[in-house]
């Protein structure tokens, strides 16, 4: 819907950015500046990362401990294969040679085409692809921040939070919800994390506009091991949006981010993500929320791109009467194996959770819906509803559904519905008979299928997601 794109954050950024790109050049780093890469992740490397980031001592200790845990854990073997990751040389993912990123010519064709079709200007394309000058949208970002600052809301990058007056708060929460021994990639994250966002909303604050991390996607190291920590205090209300429709390209094709969301008593947090990773990416992201009494977490999630994804946002409903909703769509095309879903853990009484998950697969893509709903004995009066639908665009693609439920009290109300379908040829004929070309007709059907997600997104993001679906449907 072109007329909507006017409002898109992509367009509003242009002018400032192009100007900057003219003046902003980065010195190319020389090969000898780097550690040797023919070894595993060492203490020296972790210490160096910590030094470069001016970590407080406790964070260095944290990283070193995470490194030990990392070395003790095995790579998960229960999901899509990740043997394409070179675990023996993990350090190549941790410290990519920037020299390798420095050429536009080396950016894969499909990424360039996607930028083209999404109408992203050249300067920004290069920045997003990691080959251009780092662009600094501090100005735009600052204006957003002023509005929320008036309410006492803190929105900053993790590094600043770590060394500023919120250090204690960070220390109290950092990787407490996702402990480093959760799995191997959580441990890796703990050891080498860099970049990300920190949000603190004080009691009773209400942020009308969504906080968008989009502007700082290209902070150094962001988009690979970034850490997002959001704390919404009692009665506060926040909407946080991460990501954008542009494909994120990184020469180091491992993403192991971590998101921790703390939702206080009667607080409300909506966390929306649109992710579009390049098709060589291993996306092993861990996202988790915990809700106190009467708190609500809403996840809106659109997962596009990547070669392999493991993604199961988890909600821990600790407080009585807390509530979680997950609404998500995953789109798996050629060469993609996306294993996504959600986890709900009910601890408190009268807690409720709702999962509405959609997946689309085409051109041989594999999409697996994997969810787990746990209702503990303490969660009397809990309600859970799981609804998952899969749409296969052709007969060579594959869709699996793996819903697990573990209910430990008989005082719970649980519902589950799963549907797997194909695009109906009759429906395509119907839309074509009104003048829509075949690809557009199919895209309309898929967009309709995805509408439970796009309906929940702000207009410009919804329009971008529909463009993305159109693009995915057009390419083979």
């Amino acid at each position, binding site marked *: 819907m072109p007329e909507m794109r006017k409002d898109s954050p992509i367009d509003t950024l242009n002018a400032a950015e192009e100007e900057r790109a003219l003046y902003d050049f980065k010195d190319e780093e020389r090969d000898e500046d780097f550690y040797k890469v023919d070894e595993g992740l060492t203490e020296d490397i972790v210490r160096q990362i910590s030094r470069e980031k001016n970590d407080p001592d406790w964070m260095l200790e944290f990283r070193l401990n995470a490194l030990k845990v990392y070395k003790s854990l095995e790579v998960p073997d229960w999901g899509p294969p990740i043997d394409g990751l070179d675990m023996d040389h993990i350090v190549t993912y941790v410290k990519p040679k920037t020299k390798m990123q420095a050429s536009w010519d080396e950016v894969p064709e499909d990424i360039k085409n996607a930028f083209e079709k999404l109408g992203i200007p050249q300067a920004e394309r290069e920045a997003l692809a990691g080959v251009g000058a780092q662009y600094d949208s501090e100005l735009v970002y600052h204006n957003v921040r002023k509005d929320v600052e008036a309410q006492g809301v803190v929105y900053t990058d993790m590094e600043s939070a770590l060394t500023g007056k919120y250090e204690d708060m960070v220390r109290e929460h950092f990787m407490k919800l996702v402990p480093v021994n959760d799995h191997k990639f959580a441990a890796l994250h703990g050891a080498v994390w860099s970049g990300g966002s920190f949000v603190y909303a004080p009691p009773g604050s209400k942020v009308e506009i969504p906080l968008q991390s989009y502007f700082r996607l290209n902070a150094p190291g962001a988009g690979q091991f970034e850490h997002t920590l959001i704390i919404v205090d009692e009665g506060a209300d926040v909407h946080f949006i991460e990501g954008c429709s542009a494909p994120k390209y990184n020469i180091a094709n491992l993403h192991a981010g971590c998101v921790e969301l703390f939702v206080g008593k009667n607080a409300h947090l909506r966390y929306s993500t649109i992710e579009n990773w390049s098709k060589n990416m291993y996306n092993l992201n861990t996202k988790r929320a915990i809700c106190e009494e009467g708190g609500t977490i809403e996840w809106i999630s659109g997962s596009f791109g990547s070669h392999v994804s493991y993604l199961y946002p988890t909600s821990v409903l600790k407080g009585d009467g807390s509530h979680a909703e997950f609404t998500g769509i995953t789109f798996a095309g050629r060469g993609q194996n996306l294993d996504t879903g959600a986890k709900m853990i009910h601890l408190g009484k009268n807690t409720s959770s709702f999962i509405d998950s959609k997946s689309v697969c085409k051109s041989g893509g594999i999409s697996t819906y994997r969810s787990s709903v746990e209702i503990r004995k303490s969660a009397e009066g809990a309600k859970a509803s799981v609804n998952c639908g899969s749409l296969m665009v052709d007969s060579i693609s594959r869709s699996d559904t793996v819903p697990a439920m573990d209910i430990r009290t008989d005082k719970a109300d649980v519902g589950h519905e799963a549907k797997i379908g194909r695009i109906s040829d009759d429906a395509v004929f119907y839309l074509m008979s009104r003048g829509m*070309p075949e690809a557009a007709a199919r895209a309309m059907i898929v967009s309709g299928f995805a509408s439970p997600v796009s309906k929940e997104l702000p207009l410009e993001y919804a329009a971008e997601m529909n463009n993305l679906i159109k693009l995915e449907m057009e390419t083979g």
Partner: protein
Amino acid sequence: MAAELLKIKGLNAGIGEEGILHDIDLTLNAGETHVLMGPNGAGKSTLGNVIMGSPVYGVSSGTILFDGEDITKARVDERAKKGIFLSFQNPLEVPGLTMDAFLRSVVRERTNGPLKILKFKKRLEEICGLLDLDPAFLERDLNVGFSGGEKKKAEIFQLLLLEPKLAILDETDSGLDVDAVRTVSKGISIFKEQGGSLLIITHSTRILDALTVDRTHVLVNGRIVKEGGGELVDDINRGGYAQYA
């Protein structure tokens, strides 16, 4: 003589090896209203679908000319853009796609240059008025949960919005109550007054009461067995199809 809008010559079509339509010749001039009648299973809907270009059916021989152009091999969307419209007997449901978004995409696809949003919205309101539809109708997902009458009204809505040259109405009156038939007939009359041509597929005649029929074709077992003027409709009402078998 008026210009030939649709000209079908020696058409044979079917599914795979199975022939359904045999040696069909049919000419419809611009501005005319034709009726295609016949018993169930005669191939009436098949003919409508073949004219629209449904991929379900294959044409083994013969040609279809539209506005003087051979469209026998044209894609469905190309035929639509040239001005052919098929009102479906069973319109398909598309969950998540609102009527409004659907109509907008379709009109944008068929319009050169930018869509004039205000004019478009005004037109939607007008048509809602003509067809006794609450504008909230446009917020609903395309055909999802529509009653039989609503589905047919939605088809006529699209007919009035898209203003094709030829409308093929496949059993548009079947299963409708008296009020719905009246509304649908009103829409069809408006289309006709605007100069539209009609090929009406039906096995009843209720929808024809308000229309002047120029020509009637009787299809039995995939062949046109009888042709005549509007009076043929009355003959069929009296004597049924057996007389042509």
